[in-house]
């Protein structure tokens, strides 16, 4: 259950990199509330938009929209920010207000 056979075993730390992905609001209903993304090295938020879009069926379109915000560990960050293992990324539709 540890890693997978096609990962190089010389860098075992990278094998377990998991980023928790949350979809809020309508996105959660459409794509599932919670996902886990595996990756071998830190990614930028821009990378994540692409990677999540590839992994979550149908989500690519909303991830390229500028009004879809990604926040990392509950902090609004620019698309150039780096995201590492154990962090949580939330994909936020435009706020509806209360």
């Amino acid at each position, binding site marked *: 259950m540890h890693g997978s056979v096609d990962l190089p075993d010389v860098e075992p730390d990278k094998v377990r990199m998991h980023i928790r992905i949350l979809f809020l*609001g309508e996105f959660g209903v459409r794509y599932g509330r919670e996902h886990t993304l595996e990756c071998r090295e830190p990614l930028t938020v821009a990378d994540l938009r692409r990677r999540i879009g590839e992994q979550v069926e149908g989500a690519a379109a909303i991830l390229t929209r500028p009004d879809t915000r990604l926040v990392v560990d509950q902090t609004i960050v620019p698309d150039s920010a780096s995201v590492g293992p154990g962090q949580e990324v939330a994909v936020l539709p435009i706020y509806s207000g209360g």
Partner: protein
Amino acid sequence: MAITALLSHGPPSAEAELAAFMSGRTGDGAVVAFVGLARDSSRAGPVTGLFLDHYAGFTERSLEVIAADAHARFPVSDIRVIHRCGDVAPGEAIVFVAVAAPHRRAAFEAADYLMDRLKTEAAFWKREDGPDGSRWIEPTDQDRADRQRWSD
């Protein structure tokens, strides 16, 4: 001086909140309270209920930032914001805002500002349920225009 901004999982009790907010207040001449209620209809038709999705922690902080900004902007003494999440029935309170100030103009303006910010920048995602199904809501053009009034 107290600024509180809270997320509530049930309906805020506007009357109890107002009573507590006014209690012992002898230096302020003005208290403005706003209560936002769930309506039984919208431009899309009848509404049987609302669901307000939120992002635990992040949503609370969005409320706190808005309350702190209002306090920084207007000469007011105290601010209390209580915003609900989860399921809401028509006629129930969604949001309670209270502002106390020595003079009424600042209290009115701060409450108005708070609501304009909350309607566009509080981290909630609202679903309206009606007889023809559910729809997720975005701020209206009016909400955006209201928010723009306060841009520096």
